[in-house]
């Protein structure tokens, strides 16, 4: 099966194969060393570009955000941040609960699971330009379908990568969200402390400058 897909789609075959056969695909990705970080980053980059296209070129009827508040670069950073945050949190949880996946595996699995987003976001943006408000349900349906498919694939990917059962995977994902909260708290704490340290150093500096 995978050989056929490979012959047709070349280097991008595994992400597409995963969409149809998630468990077999993720198994091939990790345990048969078929997955590469290059393709994972390609998938991630494609999602970022799709997001930017959707942000900039979707119909005003689909996305009526204020022009000054549309910042595609910031949105991309948010996607990257979410990816890293979730991966690190999941890794830190699964490392304690006998998960077999390494951080690299987790990131790769999530990136490989992004294929539905690549296939829906940009086409939905194009389609939205041919739809009126009443018909915009089609656009939202496409976006939601891609998103749900993505979530399902991430779930399957994590199960496969960590060699978990479904219940355990669900529990670790819940714990992952707790870990995300902890990390966010730590980051904000660190930032605050860093700011205070910096302002202290700066006041010492100004004091020295005034006295010299």
């Amino acid at each position, binding site marked *: 099966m995978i050989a056929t897909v490979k012959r047709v789609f070349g280097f991008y075959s595994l992400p597409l194969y995963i969409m149809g056969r998630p468990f077999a695909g993720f198994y091939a990705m990790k345990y048969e060393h078929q997955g590469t970080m290059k393709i994972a980053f390609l998938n991630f980059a494609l999602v970022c570009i799709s997001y930017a296209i959707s942000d900039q070129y979707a119909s*005003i*009827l689909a996305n*009526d955000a204020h022009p000054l508040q549309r910042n595609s670069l910031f949105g991309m950073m948010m996607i990257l941040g979410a990816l890293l945050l979730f991966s690190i949190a999941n890794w830190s949880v699964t490392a304690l609960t006998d998960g077999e996946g390494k951080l690299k595996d987790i990131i790769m699995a999530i990136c490989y699971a992004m294929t539905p987003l690549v296939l829906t976001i940009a086409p939905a943006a194009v389609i939205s330009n041919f739809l009126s408000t*009443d018909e915009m349900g089609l656009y939202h349906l496409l976006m939601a379908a891609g998103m749900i498919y993505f979530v399902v694939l991430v779930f399957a990917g994590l199960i496969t990568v960590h060699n978990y059962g479904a219940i355990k995977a669900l529990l670790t994902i819940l714990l992952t969200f707790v870990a995300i909260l902890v990390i966010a708290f730590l980051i904000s704490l660190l930032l605050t402390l860093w700011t205070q340290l910096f302002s202290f150093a700066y006041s010492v500096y100004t004091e020295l400058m005034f006295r010299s």
Partner: protein
Amino acid sequence: MRFKKIVAVLLAMLLTVGWATPFLADTPFQGYTYNYWAALVPSPAAYVPARSFTAADVCPTLVSFVDPTDIHVCPNGMIFIVDSGNHRVVVFDQRLNLLHVITGFYRDGEFERFNRPNGVFVTPEGEIFVADTLNERIAVLDSYGNFIREIVTPEIEGLDERLIFRPLYVVVDRGGRTLVIVQHVFEGIMNFDATGQFVGYFGTIEVGRNWIEIFWRFFMTDRQIQNQNRFIPTEFQSMALDDRNFVFTTNLDPWGSANQIMRLNPRGEDVILNINESVTLSGDQRHRTIGSLAGPSQLIDVIARPHGKVTALDSTRGRVYTYDAEGNLLYVFSGWGSIEGMTRRPVAIEVIGDDILILDAHMGRIIQFTPTEYGALINEAIRLRDIGDEAGAVDAWRRLTALDENFELAWAGIGRSMLAEGNHAAAMYYLRRGMDLIHFSIAFRRHRLDVMQNILPTVFTVGTALIGLFIVYKIGKHVRNRVVEA
């Protein structure tokens, strides 16, 4: 030589710069409106102060107004000021000739003085309704000030025993119903029939829910809940009848985010339109929370204007907001201050034609505002749109876009009439610019149909021809192969 010429020309150009007059009326306040995203958009001043006058300007011997509370202009142009601190109603005409000073009335040979009257209303027949607050009654007088009847505390089974009938504002609609806002009555506006009998409450204010408080209630004992403040609706602040016999009212919103203006139909249901829900009918959309002039707008008075417009007065910053029949903010003027055109303690507004009067209780002063070219154009465009003169309205909207390019409603107005004309592609441009997405969507759908009707015949013709050619080619090939084989 040539260089010198260039310098001379440049200098001459520089000189003219100084004489370029800014296209702004010289007002102490900045006009503005809100766009589709509730972002503030500065605009030219729509109204400017024309004159202001006090009691002394009406009559030199008249004691100046103390705590005036209400102003009313009746259809024949007479101006009624309720001078609450002096317990009187002062009546004068628009040329500031004093007509009456009503301090009370004779009943059965005895003079009864008003006690802190708060509101006044004059019916088209000339009957004067005075909300005589501390005397707990509404006095109905004829146009000469003679007593006709009074409306007092209703005696009806089932009404709250503790009710103290302190009427603040009164309005009489064309059906003869008397609607009264009573102090500390939260059930609604009290509704009396033409004979003065209490009929029931009219209009209610929905209580806003605060999710945090509801959450905390889960953890409270019954005792604690009993000691809590009850969720009580806010009081009605003012009333105005519009030309369709609907009642505009305002009520305060502690958060400043919900609609503060209501339009009650004869059944007492709120039917106000607010098409763009990101801009509510609540004055300023954003406000400072601490410092001077902080807090949400408090719309304490409202007047109905012709063609569905409604104007409301904010007591927090003294600004006057005007909305059209769809709830779009048209213009804002005046504000807090001591300069001419600003108010310190505005309490009431009233309208004379297109002019607007603000009653400032601080100095007992009345300020009359008159529309500028910009404001008059907006009023004119709204009028033409309302009476259905599309061509005239488009002309007015176009002139408005020349004065204020950022005024979305003008672009949307042009777009809507283009849509009605059937010029869908152009309508799309104007409606998009005016951020009228509802009509933009309609224009877009029709434009899409136009395009498809234009190109689909060609597409189908060419497609059919291609398929035909392909079939002919295939058959030809087949036949040739047969021939070669044979």
